[in-house]
């Protein structure tokens, strides 16, 4: 096994080395780094050309002082990067990703940019996985239903969206138009009717069942939407949204009940009791921690409380789970996480009016933060970041959603036809257990591979999205570097994204080897 891992690991470096040589040569020969200065008639243009040529080790017609062929420039760069493998700095040279054409330090820059890009890509990937897998399962369960066809259509639509265009459209409608609407947010009669009609049609499709049941669900949805939306409008929900005590209590209980029903079945009293205890604790903590959380100065406190909530939930599951410890823990942990998120949402809703007064147009089309917020309040700053994050995340998520949905669907359909599923059904195992325990788990195995590929692909897609949304991270580094024919920043991006792609494949390889001993040769 160790030999196998080492072999794979060595191959990883070979791939990266090959990629870096190739990219470096391509970047260096992609254009003229002095182009802007050559068209300049500035008295200092020649001096500036010399400065830049010295920085980049280029050759100039009137001085051969700074000439180095590209492979020597590559070698200089490579020795700097290799230095990063040696933290002591004793054996190899100092760790450095080189300098930009203006003499800036690329090492610091890539660290900063990678953090922002990863934030974007991680959240988009996570959401895409959750939503994609859920849609995929429902599609598979309702194969050849209208829902299945509609989802297939939508997924292929999203999948074939040019990401650049999708981003521009998202800015137009979800930022500019939304902000215009937020100036005086009211639901008109027709909006209410349209939303109600859409929900009336779609919700029964997801729930399925007999025709009578569908009609009943549809009618309920229509009445519900047609009463709640005007009510929200009347309450000025868009300006001052709150979940409120009622929603939190009801929501927590519903979550505990629903998760129990889904994962263990309501007849399992031990699990049900654990779930309800978690819900009660969650509601209690909502009131007890309100002032504490309002006073948060950074993410440290909410994150710590979140961790505490998970720990407590796990504990509740262990203590009250009895013979069904495993299932109980799953239910309590999931309820704990979801209730915490609900409470967090309420806190953000509470901050919304403050954000609106600091920033009357809540979604900006550019940048990861708003420069004119005029307040240091943690909640406002954090909500501002969220409102800036959601559009790029949405665009990136939509594009990769299709892969997960389609793979989950086909993988589910394949597994459901297997003998062991038929056996389980024949034994009288109920449908929930068949789907979740037997089919779903096995259907997830091939998906692990896709995550590795998709993640690397998304980082590439992020370059475009970041550019359109004016985010400053690896995308801008890459494009600006290429425009300046400046190899160091471009190479840093290539090395980073390439490294992640290779690393994820490496992990996938090892996982396979762990799962399937036949592969270890």
């Amino acid at each position, binding site marked *: 096994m160790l030999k196998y891992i080492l072999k794979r690991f060595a191959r990883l470096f070979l791939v990266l080395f090959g990629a870096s040589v190739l990219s470096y040569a391509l970047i260096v020969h992609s254009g003229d780094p002095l182009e802007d200065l050559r068209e300049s008639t500035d008295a200092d243009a020649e001096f500036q050309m010399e400065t830049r040529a010295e920085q980049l080790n280029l050759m100039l017609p009137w001085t051969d002082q700074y000439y180095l062929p590209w492979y020597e420039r590559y070698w200089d760069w490579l020795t700097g990067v290799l230095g990063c493998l040696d933290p002591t700095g004793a054996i190899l040279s100092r760790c450095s990703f080189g300098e930009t054409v203006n003499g800036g330090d690329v090492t610091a820059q890539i660290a900063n940019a990678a953090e922002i890009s990863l934030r974007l890509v991680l959240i988009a990937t996570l959401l895409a996985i959750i939503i994609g897998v859920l849609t995929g399962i429902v599609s598979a369960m309702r194969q050849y239903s209208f829902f299945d066809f509609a989802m297939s259509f939508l997924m292929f639509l999203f999948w074939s969206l040019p990401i650049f265009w999708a981003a521009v459209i998202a800015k137009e409608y979800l930022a500019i138009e939304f902000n215009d609407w937020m100036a005086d947010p009211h639901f008109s009669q027709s909006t209410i009717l349209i939303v109600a009609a859409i929900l009336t049609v779609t919700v029964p499709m997801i729930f399925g069942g007999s025709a009578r049941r569908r009609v009943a669900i549809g009618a309920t949805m229509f009445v519900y939407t047609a009463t709640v939306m005007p009510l929200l409008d009347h309450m000025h929900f868009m300006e001052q949204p709150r979940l409120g005590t009622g929603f939190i209590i009801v929501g927590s209980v519903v979550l505990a009940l629903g998760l129990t029903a889904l994962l263990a079945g309501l007849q399992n009293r031990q699990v049900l009791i654990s779930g309800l205890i978690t819900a009660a604790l969650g509601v209690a903590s909502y009131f007890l921690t309100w002032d504490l959380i309002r006073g948060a100065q950074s993410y440290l406190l909410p994150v710590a409380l979140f961790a505490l909530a998970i720990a407590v939930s796990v504990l509740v599951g262990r203590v009250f789970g009895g013979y069904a410890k495993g299932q109980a823990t799953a239910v309590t942990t999931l309820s704990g996480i979801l209730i915490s998120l609900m409470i967090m949402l309420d806190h953000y809703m509470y901050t919304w009016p403050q954000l609106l007064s600091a920033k009357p147009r809540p979604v900006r089309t550019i940048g990861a*933060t708003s420069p004119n917020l005029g307040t240091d309040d943690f909640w406002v700053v954090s909500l501002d970041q969220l409102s800036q994050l959601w559009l790029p995340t949405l665009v990136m998520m939509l594009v990769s959603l299709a892969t997960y949905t389609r793979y989950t669907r086909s993988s589910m359909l394949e597994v459901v036809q297997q003998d062991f599923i038929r056996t389980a059904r024949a034994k009288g195992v109920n449908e929930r257990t068949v789907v979740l325990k037997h089919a779903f788990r096995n259907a997830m195995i091939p998906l692990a591979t896709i995550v590795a590929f998709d993640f690397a692909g998304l980082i590439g897609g992020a370059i475009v999205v970041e550019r359109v949304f004016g985010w400053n991270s690896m995308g801008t580094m890459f494009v600006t570097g290429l425009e300046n024919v400046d190899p160091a920043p471009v190479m840093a991006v290539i090395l980073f994204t390439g490294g992640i792609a290779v690393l994820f494949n490496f992990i996938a390889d090892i996982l396979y080897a762990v799962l399937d001993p036949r592969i270890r040769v």
Partner: protein
Amino acid sequence: MKLRKLSAATAMLASGALILTACTPGDDGNGGNGDGGNGDATETQNGENGGDAEAGVEEGTGGEFDQEGALYSTIPDSGAKAEMPEGFETNGDTIISSPGAVPFINVNNDEAGANSTGNSIVSDRMSSGFMYFGSDLSIVENEEFGSYEVLSEDPLTVEYTINEEAVWSDGTAITALDYQLGWAGQAYADTEESPGAGFNPSGSSLADYVPDGFQAEAPDAKTFTMELPEYYADWQLLVSGPGVPAHIVAQESDMSVDELSTAIQEGDLEALEPVAEVWNEGLGYAGEWDPEIALSSGPYQLAEWNWQGEESGGSVTLEPNPEWWGTPPGTETLIFQFVDESTHVQALENQDINVIEPQADEDVKLALDDLAETGDVVVHEGDIASWEHIDFQYQQGPFAETPELAEAFALCLPRQEIVEQLIQPVYEEAEVLNAREVLSFQEGYDDFVAESYDGRYDGADVEGAAEIIEANDAVGTTIDINHFGQPRRAAAVEIINTYCGAEGAGFDIQDAGDPAFSAELLEGNWSGVAMFAWAGSGQIVSGQNIYSSDGQQNATGYSNETVDEQWDVIAGNISDEERTQALIEMEQALWDDLHGIPLYTHPGVVAHDSSIANVRMTAAQTQVQWNAEQWQRAE
């Protein structure tokens, strides 16, 4: 069955939910939520207005220096900044603009790494100087800062006097030493020939033309003189702002102001080494800054620096400089956000950015015109100081073998058509450019053209061109049109092809667009013609480098005695009338010999929130932010 029970329970709970809302934490019972901090945020945003500053705003009439529909406190009547009316006060407001993606990186704008438009746009708001470029590329003396006069013509000696009131934002007077330090930054840089103290400047012309530096009676004098051993026609451009505060640099490098002064006078490289370190990156670099060190000599000072890496992004917030002695700036908070130009139009529509200067192409112009129709946005369009032209290569290729063909090419060149199809969609009033040293937006352009050019290449004379080609037995001669591969230039080649190509005058026109051509341009080893632009920098003598026989930017082997002679006259110490006369003679020779043909000046577009007054477009490289201190939102 269980599911149905579950949904029934859910429905019951859901209806109960609304009843229970009463005791929600944080609810103040008035139907509103939000903490006390709420009020503060509103204030900083929409704040109290500083007096009735927006009182006398007038609408522009669409004259030469203003734009119809735009608001002005004073309608500008020249390229200089308009004088703000009496009682012009700072308005408690925020205006955001974007100078493009390249961020502000160094408080010392004279450092090599800071050599970008983004840096100088921000830096210029935090400094003032003896002169600036007006919107028509004219040199404007800034009397608020100081004055200068020529003491002697030979050698040229200029005396600069800094305004008595001029101080840095910590209250310390701006003195001659600040200028001497700026000179030292260039003079004691490391070069190939000699080691220096480690200064890393973005230019060398000041040290080249003023080898002895500035002379002052004392380091803290308000007057200093500059002596140029050799006459330099662009001497006015050598000195403007005070650069960085010498007293802060001295303090940061652990020496007294006098010691610094002595070290500069004596050229003591060892003593200057720590100074160079502070000068290069020690005054505020890459987001690391200290309000007591990053001082301002202009209307604004640094308030916030949101640094997000060098390639792009982040923002800089400026606030009024409390020690500023001149006309107060128009707006309390000026924000520069560094984002790519492709995002500007939507950002303007969403009011994320209030003043933009995007890439001037047809799509952008159409999108902006749509926005302008709502009345919320005003669009300015005009010329910028960058001019497109075609140069003939006389060292090799078809024009070396048969120079007469240059005449044929010039005759069939559809200049009017190129302007109509490519430039007028962006800037309707764009015209064919008929001069090289005076651009169409500059003063006296019409008279200059009337005297230097007789209109011989105005109409695309395909037949005339064909005759010459046939007479030289050159039908089908391949003419490479070299350019850097931009779409607009490729489109121009197509238009040229319909007139001069096989269907027209009879050349074989080849589009040789290639980004790599830029590296070969000045080496001169190409053939045919080159189509590119010179970015004008407002200098008088920059053309000498291009047109004289041994000029460094002369890449076509062009040589003409009259041109060489006239350039020596132009670069000499003469009056403006004499200089114009010499320029006319020089241009005539360039037309006669067909060095090349000017095509058009590049168009520019500026758009802004229509409620902001005093936004003006400029042809100079200082961009629309050149008078940002005058911007003010009118109610």
